[in-house]
């Protein structure tokens, strides 16, 4: 079966949105999911990650057994971990530089972001334990944790989907009812993406991915599900759009603003989850696997970004910090904002292109006579 380009494409879109949304007061953020959905690109990212994890490692499990599949999942978790530590080092550099060169006494008391510099030995260890999660460095720890538990999820799904779905759903509902949070460093902080809640999105996405491996490629009760999803999505869309317009132009009424806002992101409020799944149903129905646009040249950069998701995600985090720095330092006119966004997206596209090119070259076997004979004599490659 050929690769499902929809996954790559929409993950690419999510990565671009994450970059845009991470630049504060960015005009383009009025055009991302955040502006017209109760959810944002984080849900897309975690959903597609769970779905693809089930596809990829489910096949490994079938082909090469549980031990190998587990080893591969953990290897991926390790890669993510290393990437997270790399981003953390950049963050430390940025903050300690700012803190030591800062001269304005009006912030001495309150701007204690650099508190951790007083006890770097603790802070660094906490970061290595994924307990110290500065702003924007909070989604990778969730993803890492999800992969670490994934072998168990995978083996459970293999037995019976309910074996995984039930505990996951019960945990999610418990968090919604009792508001349990996972503590983080420094004291009083919690995991921004509460893993006890967000696991449900990852696991349910994995179950859908696993269902596909088992041969189920269509939705049950397609008509009912589609109509329900359309109603839910459109209602949520209109409400959120009214909020966004209200935020820009006050006379426009924000529908149900008083009743519904704020919608909890940390615990993945059902108000985020349900409209998100509605969108998933709509997209799965309306965008067929072989949709023409996925092969189009214009979609290519996004597909490539989605395929190199870890590298592009990290790059996006760094670029959005850089973009924010440029905008605060050199003025944030609309032209400047657009230029910074365009430059960042261009860098992401180019990098994805380069990595994709490198991987193809790397994978193409070069059959020199010596190498060929050595390979055949060894018998096993890699």
């Amino acid at each position: 079966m050929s690769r499902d380009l929809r996954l790559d494409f929409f993950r690419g879109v999510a990565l671009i949105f994450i970059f845009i949304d991470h630049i504060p007061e960015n005009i383009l953020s009025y055009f991302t999911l955040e502006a017209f959905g109760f959810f944002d690109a984080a849900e897309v990212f975690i959903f597609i990650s769970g779905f693809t994890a089930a596809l990829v490692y489910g096949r490994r499990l079938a082909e090469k057994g549980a031990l190998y599949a587990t080893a591969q999942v953990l290897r991926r978790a390790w890669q993510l971990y290393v990437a997270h530590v790399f981003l953390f080092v950049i963050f430390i550099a940025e903050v300690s530089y700012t803190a030591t060169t800062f001269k304005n006494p009006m912030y001495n008391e309150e701007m204690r972001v650099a508190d951790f510099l007083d006890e770097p030995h603790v802070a660094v260890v906490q970061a290595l334990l994924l307990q110290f999660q500065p702003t924007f460095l909070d989604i990778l720890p969730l993803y890492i944790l999800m992969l670490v538990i994934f072998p168990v999820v995978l083996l459970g799904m293999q037995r019976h989907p309910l074996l995984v779905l039930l505990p996951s759903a019960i945990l999610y509902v418990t968090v919604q009812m009792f508001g349990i949070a996972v503590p983080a460093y420094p004291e009083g902080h919690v995991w921004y993406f509460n893993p006890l809640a967000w696991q449900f999105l990852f696991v349910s996405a994995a179950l859908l991915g696993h269902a596909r491996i088992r041969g189920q490629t269509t939705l049950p009760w397609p008509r009912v599900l589609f109509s329900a999803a359309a109603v839910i999505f459109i209602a949520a869309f209109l409400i959120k759009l009214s909020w966004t317009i209200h935020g820009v132009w006050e006379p426009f009424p924000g529908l149900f603003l008083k009743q519904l806002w704020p919608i909890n992101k940390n615990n993945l409020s059902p108000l985020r989850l349900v409209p998100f799944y509605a969108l998933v149903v709509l997209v799965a129905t309306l965008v067929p696997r072989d949709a023409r646009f996925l092969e189009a040249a214009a979609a290519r950069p996004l597909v490539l970004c989605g395929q190199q998701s870890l590298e592009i995600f990290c790059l996006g985090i760094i670029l959005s910090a850089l973009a924010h720095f440029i905008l605060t330092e050199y003025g944030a006119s609309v032209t400047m904002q657009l230029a910074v966004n365009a430059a960042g997206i261009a860098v992401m596209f180019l990098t994805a292109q380069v990595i994709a090119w490198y991987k193809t070259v790397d994978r193409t076997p070069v059959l020199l006579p010596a190498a060929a004979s050595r390979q055949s004599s060894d018998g096993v490659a890699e």
Partner: protein
Amino acid sequence: MRRRSCFGVAALAAAAPFLGLFPARAEHECEVPPEMIQVSVKLPHLAARLKAREPVNIVAIGGASTTGTAAGSPDLAYPHRLQLALAKFFPDAPITVVNKGVPRQSTRQMVGRFATDVIPEDPVLVVWETGISDAVRGIEVDDFATGLQAGIDEVKNRSIDILLVDMQFSRSTATIIDFERYLTALHKVADLNGVYVFPRYEMMRYWSEQNMFNFDEVAADERARLAARVYDCIGHKLAQAIRLAVQ
């Protein structure tokens, strides 16, 4: 250290014509564009008190920028500057602004102080400066919003007027602290409750863009004096906003 900053200034000066920095200095130091001081919300209880020429008690509750330690003395903090400016605008009513700033408190912690620090002062107006610690500590935006709501309710239920003062702006910290979510939440809560927000963040950003109050260019012992000037401007502008809200 010194050499680096000299170099920085020189580089900035050289690049300034291209970057559009250093536009013509505004005439008065505190000058802001008129749309930054537009007040559509009224403060009815304060207005009535002023009209009756009765003594006015105002409580300023907030964090370190309310305490005003950076300027060196409570008389130089913005609440006292506000009192002086209001006294000029309303010479007929005796006006006191009580400073109840405690550094490094979250919005929820401040709400916990309302019963002991705010209500017993019998204020007719509460000026609530908050949001910085919440953003610095990365407190959940939900928690922040519900904290604000609780504080506003507590004050409004006692027929006391309230206005909010949002965060301080500084270019260097803006890049490492994500204020936007908290600013949006604060303005949204205020909007839902019909409460005026004094746009301190926007104002200080404007001053920063105009290159007023540049802390990098002055000697260390001058910085407290510069901070005092900023607080004076905040107090003055806030008094102007309050005057508009009682007209």
